[in-house]
């Protein structure tokens, strides 16, 4: 037995180890970066709640030692919106996969961004429904192979940064699991920023997606991400769509300010209701 201690162990429910994720999976990297972002942000983890949906990434809520909610498929964003409305003093983070957030939860995603709920959405995009064995997902590049796209997928995938940007998110970034420092930094920035902040994390699924599409193992994914990624901060999100084995534009694409849902509510009600209205608390003390 090694006596090495995982540096983020105190943030994990060690009594639930070993976890379910496969060797080479990108989700562990995301957990690691998330914990580093919490530490860097200085936010007391007991003043933060983690919300996940269903799927491999959805299991993060169960492994992280914080107040955590493993909700229903596609619904972590409205759950988190309710949580934040009830407890604006807490930081609320959604960690889930692209099948959960963008396919079954797509409507909640665009409306969460539109109303600028003060929640942080960190989306692991591995291009497939991994937990159910590898069906085609809403971001799967054209021509990729999946159990339900045995001859290649033929419907156009979503470009997530563009979707988030055009729906109204105030912060939009994309990194791969190769870009651990940049990812942790983006998560830290998102945690500090009021409003609907979205970070897409392009992640490998060696067991299910990579194998079927002959993309190699977890290490090959790192080599590919290193070679194919190009940092373009402020890129036009319309131009950052992904293709099978194609280039990956990463960076911080959007960083703008507008009132959060609760701030906008106060802005509307204070002048109209006057003394009849007590301004609602709107956020964490950042």
């Amino acid at each position, binding site marked *: 037995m090694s006596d090495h201690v995982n540096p983020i162990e105190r943030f994990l429910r060690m009594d639930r180890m070993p976890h379910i994720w496969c060797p080479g999976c990108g989700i562990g990297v995301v957990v690691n970066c998330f914990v580093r972002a919490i530490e860097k942000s200085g936010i007391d983890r007991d003043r933060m709640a983690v919300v996940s949906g269903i799927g491999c990434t959805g299991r993060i809520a169960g492994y992280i030692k914080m107040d955590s909610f*493993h909700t229903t498929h596609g*619904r972590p964003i*409205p759950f988190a919106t309710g*949580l934040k*409305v*009830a*407890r604006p003093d*807490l930081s609320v983070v959604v960690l889930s996969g692209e099948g959960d957030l963008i396919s079954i939860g797509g409507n*909640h995603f665009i409306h969460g961004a539109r109303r600028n709920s003060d929640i942080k959405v960190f989306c692991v995009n591995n291009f497939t429904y991994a937990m159910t064995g590898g069906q085609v997902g809403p971001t799967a590049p054209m021509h990729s192979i999946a159990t339900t796209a045995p001859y290649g997928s033929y419907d156009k995938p979503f470009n997530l940064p563009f979707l988030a940007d055009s729906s109204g998110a105030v912060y939009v970034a994309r990194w791969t699991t190769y870009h651990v420092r940049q990812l942790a930094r983006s998560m830290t920035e998102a945690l500090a920023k009021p409003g609907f902040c979205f970070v897409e994390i392009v992640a490998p699924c060696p067991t299910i997606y990579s194998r079927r599409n002959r993309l190699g193992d977890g290490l090959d994914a790192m080599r590919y991400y290193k070679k194919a990624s190009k940092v373009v901060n402020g890129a036009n999100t319309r131009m950052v769509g992904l293709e099978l084995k194609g280039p990956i534009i990463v960076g911080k694409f959007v960083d703008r300010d507008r009132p959060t849902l609760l701030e906008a509510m106060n802005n509307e009600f204070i002048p109209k209701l006057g003394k009849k209205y007590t301004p609602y608390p709107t956020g964490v003390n950042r």
Partner: protein
Amino acid sequence: MPKADPRGVLSGVHFLDGDQACCEGALAAGCRVAFGYPITPSTAVVERISRRLPLVGGVFVQMEDEIASSIAIQGAAWGGKKVMTVSSGPGISLMMEHVGFAAMTETPCVFVNVQRGGPSTGLPTLPAQADMMQARWGSHGDYEIIALCPNSPQECFDLTILAFNLAERYRVPVMFMMDEAVGHMTEKVVIPDAKEIDVEQRRLPEGPKEDYLPYRAGENMVPPMAPLGEGYRFHVTGLTHDEKGYPAMDAGAQAELVRRLVDKILLQADDICRVEEHQVEDAEVIIVAYGITSRVVLRTLQMARDKGLKVGVFRPVVVWPFPVKRLRQLARLGQTRAFVVPELNLGQISLEVERIAAGDARTVSVPHAGGALHDPPEILRVIEEVLG
């Protein structure tokens, strides 16, 4: 028991419809966060609550759909608020996913269903009582909920408070089963002083945080519910879970959890059930009716008694859990020959009555597909046939 926060209580005598009275009941009960989506005939509830909540320190957000509304309330419930959402048949069908989630995670919340004719889009502006079985069985898996059936605007106020109190006491989704007729009926509603309104408070855990087991049943087979953001570091999942709240994928954990979720309601039905009875003592025929139909049958009762017929009325005010014990007693009274069950569906509760009567008394359904109410003489004719 603690009393209501006076800010939310519109004390006085009002002229309100059932939808509005339900909204006022929710505010009196302490509801401070609501999410909803418009649908006839429940829209007046969300319209009023969107106007009233900002004045009492609360928040209403109109969500993108009923699915979002039904899970957003649960986020807010875990944030410590008393919460509700409001809809009608088609929207309630969409919410069923989260009735199951609330049952599984033991999240206190209230779902108001102003029933209309179905299936599908059905009769948006006309009454029915056809969601009674959906209220109980609509989500997948074995679980129990509580369902109440008001029959007047006054009860829409009073029983909404009871719905919130039961949701908190049992940590269970409560279905508030109105119908179009009750929702749109306008009558006198008396709202008492806040100090006369009992409001159930959520039971919090005691003892060291490290030892807290989020799903260890306490008093009443219900686990205390930890507040968020105070270092309990608890986990909530819709997966089958153990006392720690951790996923537990085996038959033993499933049996233990599901049995408790069901038993905490069924074994405590005596505390939950509310019934109303009229002249059952000597009745040979007992009309069993709930919601709006329980008002219609009072006319039938009067007509029958005027004719010298020994008829009574039994009304479950709480329909789920069903008042099994009392109905069985009535079935076994020597003189009870039959239960006559008029309802605005094709016989949902009448099957429950028949099961409970177990042959000790006949059960005769008086079905109505909805869109209008029963005609009192129509029910009387059935009674006369039964009495032959």
